[in-house]
């Protein structure tokens, strides 16, 4: 029990519980299945990307380029699909494959040229996004195919709220759930996952222990790309258009959610559980502020305060702990 207080995840969970109580008191609509379902659908995009970022952060790297990867992947996919047709499976597969490919390029540059991942991905972000701008000329794609639209509107559970309005659990969060499950198995039950932790914990030791560092790099960054490709499709499902500039710029939101969930920017530390909590907190703040009818002018202030509280408390505890360790037994 006492060990729990060492983890940032615990504090984020606590903030979520307190915030949820406060919001529910002010507006009971918060704690409804309908709101939960809506939130799940809205945050699938952020949720999927955050898992990719978690993998990269654990491995000791960082990826900035994933929004550009997502945009390029989904733009190319939908462009081809609008011309040649397809179905939901081909769209997801193609976008994921393009994303993974672009991620692979990141990995190769990072590994073989030994350029810090932040520099590499800043550069590739510009290259990927720039090429897209050149080739698309900034044209947006509208008029998504009918089957695509229908899929995005599918509910797997359909219910009716007290006002008689139907609602349901969309099929979109199921994609997220599948990604969570896959990520959980990889991180906890495969040597690949443990290798990613080992790599982020101590690169030299990971090498000596016999992990294949190249394989780990290739996996981590292409997995990030693959998830970006899928997240790109999710974004288009929600907005029903492909925009060239709607995703680039959201990098920090995603990275912030993951770091909020306890992942370390120095690598080796981070849990799936924490990342989900981080995304949940970000989602609940946005949703809750409107539900509590707080003025939109205050949003940023509030978000900043919540981050400071959730991260600050655990950081402060660690500091106290270190100081206690230093003291001397005096007679």
């Amino acid at each position: 029990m006492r060990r729990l207080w060492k983890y940032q995840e615990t504090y984020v969970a606590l903030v979520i519980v307190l915030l949820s109580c406060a919001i529910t008191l002010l507006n009971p609509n918060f704690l409804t299945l309908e709101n939960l379902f809506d939130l799940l659908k809205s945050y699938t995009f952020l949720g999927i990307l955050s898992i990719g970022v978690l993998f990269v952060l654990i491995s000791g790297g960082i990826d900035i380029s994933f929004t550009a990867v997502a945009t390029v992947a989904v733009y190319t996919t939908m462009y081809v699909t609008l011309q040649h047709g397809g179905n939901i499976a081909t769209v997801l597969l193609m976008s994921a494959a393009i994303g993974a490919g672009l991620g692979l390029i990141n990995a190769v540059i990072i590994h073989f040229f030994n350029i810090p991942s932040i520099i590499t991905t800043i550069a590739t972000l510009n290259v990927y996004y720039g090429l897209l701008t050149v080739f698309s000329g900034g044209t947006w794609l509208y008029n998504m195919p009918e089957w695509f639209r229908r899929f995005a509107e599918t509910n797997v559970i359909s219910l009716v709220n007290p006002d008689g309005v139907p609602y349901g659990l969309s099929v979109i969060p199921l994609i997220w759930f599948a990604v969570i499950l896959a990520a959980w198995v990889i991180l906890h039950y495969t040597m690949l996952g443990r290798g990613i932790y080992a790599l982020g914990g101590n690169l030299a030791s990971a090498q000596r222990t016999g992990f294949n560092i190249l394989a780990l790099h290739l996996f981590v960054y292409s997995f990030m790309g693959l998830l970006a490709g899928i997240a790109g499709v999710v974004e288009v499902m929600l907005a029903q258009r492909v925009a060239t500039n709607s995703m680039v710029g959201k990098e920090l939101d995603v990275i912030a959610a993951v770091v909020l969930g306890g992942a370390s920017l120095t690598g080796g530390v981070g849990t799936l559980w924490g990342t989900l909590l981080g995304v949940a907190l970000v989602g609940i703040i946005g949703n809750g502020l409107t539900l509590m009818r707080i003025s939109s002018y205050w949003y940023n202030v509030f978000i900043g305060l919540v981050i400071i509280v959730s991260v600050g408390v655990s950081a402060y505890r660690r500091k106290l702990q270190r100081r206690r360790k230093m003291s001397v037994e005096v007679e």
Partner: protein
Amino acid sequence: MAQPFLSMKNISKRYAGVQALDRVDFEVAYGEIHCLVGENGSGKSTLIKIISGAVQPDPGGIIEIDGERFHDYHSIDAIRKGIEVIYQDLSLFPNLSVAENIALSEILAAGDRFVNWRAVHEIARRAMARIGVRLPLDELVGEISIADQQLVAICRALTRDVRLVIMDEPTASLTHREVEALFGVVRDLQSKGIATLFVSHKLNEVFQIAERVTVLRDGRNIGCFPAQELNDRKLTELMTGKQLEYSHYVPVKLPEQPLLEVQHLSLRGNFRDITFQLHAGEILGITGLLGSGRTELALALFGVNPAQSGEIRINGRPARIRSVQDAVRLGIGYVPENRLTQGLVSQQSVSRNIVLTILERLINRLRLIDHRAVRDTVKRWIDQLSIRVPSPEAPVQTLSGGNQQRVVLAKWIAIQPRILILDGPTIGIDVAAKSAIHNIIRDLARRGLGIMMISDEIPEVYHNCNRVLVMHKGRIVAEFDTAHISEEDIQQCINQLS
């Protein structure tokens, strides 16, 4: 002796023009505790790399392990023969649990793709049982003590059928008591027929346990000696090839007025009722076990964690030290124990590091940095402390340990302090560099500085200090005048404490 477990003959290794090893013969018997010593650059690490199979010797060498002769010897052979190396940095994963750290390489070697957590715990438990230690298996390695981390590294080595454990500088960051515990484990390994090879340049501890000592110098094997036949002095001579003159530091006539007077100084949880005097020209040694409060006392005098009660006088005048700025203004300099994390900005140049503390004296009338003054100052200190650098603009991290320590010294001497506190001034540097640093310190004292030297190496304080204080549990428990006692007296006093 019968046939040895490991036998190496005529081993040479040449790297791009440097003869790292020159026709070295080396052997370790079954279940033996052997020690390999030598200064930096003597070829120790090259020899270890060859034993572990990471590096191949030049043609002509013969390696024989457990009766099997190898022509082409690689890591896989070393592992198969049960040779495990525990590197100085331990190669652990601070972010993973104890159990996982112990079991990971075993699972990886087995080629498994999936992790069975029950098997992980089983492997870890079995390894711990072999040396009879108990470690918290679910704790993160980064959160346990260095000593426990060392045990984790040993347990990891024991997951396989190990015959020879090689430990690179295992005692460097352990306290006295932890070293004892480690030696207990090593003896236990010995009773199970497992040999241990220590690689060290820290002298005194090794004798307690080693049976034989092999000395390397400049890539050659100087000889293999039974440990009883050696003492500190002889070993140093073997390692350096020089007759080191051990002289006592005897200060010239001390002034009446003490430079620093400390009375009843206390800081809760750190130290209590500390009273002593320091005169200009003195080198005052402070020793005691790790955790005795000596570093804490130094930090208090330097204003990092100011004392709560008591009195400090400098040149007879009461002094208030509430912050580092206060201490610096009063002419106190402090060279911390961990020079890399506390004393230097290691990516920056030697020049910048040296002038860091005195920048405000080096500005011109326009309040800009006077580059010529900086250049002159830096040159003066580099010359005076004979710091060997390719250029003053070279980053500090490219220098050897001894030269880095000199840069730290330069940085603090540059503020021209009256009192200089040195915490572990020669930790991690080899014998020759050590004595050079000692000479610098003595020279500074002769020029009228009052110096406090904190060290847990008894020979170091005995030879270089005119007085020695022993601290224990936050108090001063003994004071010695080194002119009238022997090294053993201090050692005995400390042994009684633990």
